[in-house]
């Protein structure tokens, strides 16, 4: 973990292997046709010295303001597109990573649930000789339906808010990254030009120095494991009880409104988690990110952290993880309310106006708001909710000003402790 923190906060230098003169920022190892004019470049990267350059508010591992927005694209081999023209990328605000291990554990359990539902539907269809439609519900979140045919064919068209392989990918604003491990490898390459051997090494690329910067095997499996260990054990945000009685009273009213106007339909107050055992590598990564069978998994028992006792438990003994999210993607714009539909590109099969529900834990500590950090206030970003959230947003607008203020007062209790 110390090593992970050191890597997270390190300002990588050319002596470490920073820079990727002959590799793009793409997740799939991709060569540039020619080296860029400059090593640093805001759109195509590399664009940061350290992870903690951006993930820094209010603590290391936290979020970032608009200054440290990043640009997301799949990478181009043609230098003409590696310009500062942002039309080929999406601009994103920096998320915080507090409680990220819990988020990944939730996603793993939910993925396992969804795949079990699929498996049961397929089995029933084969046994009965008739098509079986099954609701994809896990931890109270509905992800549409699948229909299994007796011959093993699965109709994917009614799946909602999750990828068709029924893997919940909990990371990134779009919900398209499977694990801290996968994200760490991607980010290290994109932002720092530090390339992980398990993705960019000779096994997959034929080269130990894929980016041709004179440094072979820049990040070992151990380095990535250390980054995962540190991030996975970051303490989660908390709900703070205000000292000010007026704030306390307002927050209580706001908390009630949060439910009555339907915010909690997507921003679920808590998701139940059966186990705090965090295995690395995880069960759902694909080749290019270390997998079980390539390494002996190690398990970090997060129950032994000193913050684990702060987690509430339900009658079944499940830990209640107060993310205020559902790990599901939703359409967040409509014809009238479209401010959050300001991206130019879909990402990894996810449409432009579809985003994973932002977890609200820590929201009071992580302004600005919205996937691009376009909104300086919580009121502003709530008003920008359209699409699936339109009814709740309209209900919010229908509240009296005091009640809207109360709702904000409630959200302002969701902090990252310092």
């Amino acid at each position: 973990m110390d090593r992970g923190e050191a890597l997270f906060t390190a300002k990588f230098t050319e002596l470490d292997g920073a820079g990727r003169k002959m590799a793009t920022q793409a997740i799939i190892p991709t060569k540039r046709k020619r080296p860029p004019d400059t090593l640093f470049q805001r759109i195509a990267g590399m664009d940061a010295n350290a992870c903690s350059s951006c993930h820094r508010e209010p603590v290391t591992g936290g979020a970032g303001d608009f200054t440290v927005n990043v640009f997301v694209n799949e990478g181009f081999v043609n230098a003409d597109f590696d310009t500062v023209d942002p039309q080929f990328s999406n601009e994103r605000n920096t998320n915080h990573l507090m409680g990220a291990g819990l988020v990944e554990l939730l996603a793993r359990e939910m993925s396992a649930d969804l795949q079990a539902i699929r498996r049961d539907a397929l089995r029933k269809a084969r046994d009965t000789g008739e098509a079986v439609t099954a609701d994809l519900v896990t931890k109270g979140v509905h992800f549409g339906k699948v229909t299994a045919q007796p011959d093993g064919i699965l109709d994917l068209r009614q799946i909602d808010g999750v990828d068709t392989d029924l893997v919940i990918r909990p990371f990134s604003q779009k919900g398209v990254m499977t694990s801290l491990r996968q994200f760490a490898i991607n980010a290290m390459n994109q932002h720092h030009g530090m390339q992980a051997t398990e993705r960019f090494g000779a096994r997959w690329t034929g080269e130990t120095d894929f980016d041709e910067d004179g440094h072979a095997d820049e990040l070992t499996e151990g380095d990535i494991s250390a980054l995962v260990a540190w991030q996975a054990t970051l303490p989660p945000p908390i709900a703070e009880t205000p000292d000010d009685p007026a704030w306390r009273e307002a927050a209580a009213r706001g908390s009630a409104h949060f439910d009555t106007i339907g915010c909690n339909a997507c921003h679920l107050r808590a998701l139940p988690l059966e186990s705090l055992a965090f295995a690395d590598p995880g069960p759902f990564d694909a080749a290019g990110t270390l997998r079980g069978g390539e390494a002996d998994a190690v398990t970090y028992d997060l129950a032994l952290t000193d913050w684990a006792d702060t987690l509430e438990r339900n009658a079944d003994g499940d830990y209640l993880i107060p993310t205020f999210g559902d790990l599901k993607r939703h359409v967040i714009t409509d014809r009238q309310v479209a401010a959050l539909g300001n991206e130019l590109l879909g990402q990894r099969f996810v449409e432009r106006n579809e985003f994973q529900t932002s977890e609200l834990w820590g929201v009071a500590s992580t302004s600005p708001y919205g996937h691009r950090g376009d909104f300086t206030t919580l009121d502003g970003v709530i008003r920008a909710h359209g699409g699936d959230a339109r009814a709740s947003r309209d209900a919010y607008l229908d509240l009296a000003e005091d009640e809207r203020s109360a709702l904000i007062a409630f959200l302002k209790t969701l902090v990252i402790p310092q």
Partner: protein
Amino acid sequence: MTRLSFALCLTGLVLTAPATAEDGPADLPMDVPVMVEEALAAGIDHQYTGPWEYFVGGGAAAFDCNGDRMPDLAFAGGTSRASLYVNRSAIGGELQFAEKPDALPEDARDHVTGLYPLDIDNDGYRDLVVLRVGENILLKGGPDCSFTEANRAFAFDGGRAWSTAFAATFEPHLPFPTLAFGNYVDRSAPGSPWGTCHDNVLLRPQGPGGERPDYSEPNVLTPGYCALSMLFTDWNRSGEPALRITNDRQYYREGQEQLWRVSPDRPPRPYRRSDGWRRVQIWGMGIAEADLNADGFPEYALTSMGDTKLQTLDDEAEHDRPVYRDIAFDNGATAHRPYTGEDLKPSTGWHAEFSDFNNDGRLDLFIAKGNVQQMQDFAAYDPDNLLLGKAEGGFTEAGDKAGIALPRRGRGAAVADFNMDGMLDLAVVNREAPVSLFRNAGGRTETGTRPMGNWLEIELRQNGVNRDAIGATVTVKSGNETRTRKLRVGGGHASGSAGFVHVGTGTAERAQIRVQWPDGEWSAPFRVFANNFVVIERGATSAQYWYPVE
């Protein structure tokens, strides 16, 4: 920054890194698949046997004949009986097959040299083309791996030749496939066997269609030069496949490799020197095609005695000028003598097939090897090749490391995922030795195996004529890489496969698939996640996944 002091429970771990398995062999950076030979344990006990007529041939067919989408296996037997084995393998487990003795009609089990699966009559059941020393037989497929002889029903004259090659294509506006049969030595001709190669035959379905094809009017492809493999291939991206034939110089005089124009409604016509076709004379045994340099035009591996050829279009080539040059040496694909053992005599190559055995996203080349019988000037111990594709292009030999270097005389082969785990397995028919059945167990490590790259397996379906979309092109795009596969019937050595098309995608966890259907129409893109079986119906707006029985 905030740090916590807490006790971290490490369940059998160290802090810095998981205990990783060692990398693969030090001299090869890519995964080397561990191919575990388990034919007998899997229930397959079969040999290809016989005298001179069976020095060649020895085919296998991998195709689903009972509707469970798992590839079943049929083997030619020569003087032994051809056999069909039903796949009973557990998903991801050891291979398991059960012989179905009554699957093939008795008359179709003798003197068999090769087998190719193909839905000839568009009924949704794959039929089986049986190549024989003597009358060839078309077997009409039915439910549950049942086959009935259909020569009369299809007005097909199986002839009396010694057939050793086959290919099929669906020509525009014809209701059934066009069939091509390649024949070897005409044993009844004066002076046989030298210079007495039999003509080949092309059969177009006659009439307007209906339930049954009518193959009553053959086109003779003369001269024949003792064909041992043939393949319809769209060499110039015209959308009109030509018929490529590889021939055995052992018996022809003044012969050569051949490429025939097969234009709709016109008799086939060979490309000649005036068309740019260069004379190549080899002991041609097998053909495999793949677009190795991603220029849209296929390369061809041609197995032979000594050097394997790897042909690519030359700079002098034009739309209707098939000028080829050999790039085997530059690509490390000559495979001209055994790569292990003490025998340094030239190799004898047979079945060839491009596939991605280690799922790294690059095509590999399998070549079955084996002495004709006891040819003193050629290697007696002649192990099969597994040439793994390299990141920088070209190939490197890994047959011995993979475990396929057995002292057997290989002939035909079938490459398919028999246990539906996403990794390609391999069946090899051996002359006068047991069939080899290799299960791909994953990438080799010092202590065992590990998972390899990501993969997709893709099935195409369309209604009406050509249900399996033979002739279609499948493109799989991930990032900047586009991988292409063609659905073909033919090539290899007396062996054919039908079913899922396998594509390794390396580190890509998702891909966009597009299909150019046989009539040239392009599909919309289908977005899929790797490590899935994908079924694409023509006209559908989205792909479907298929899951094997767990």
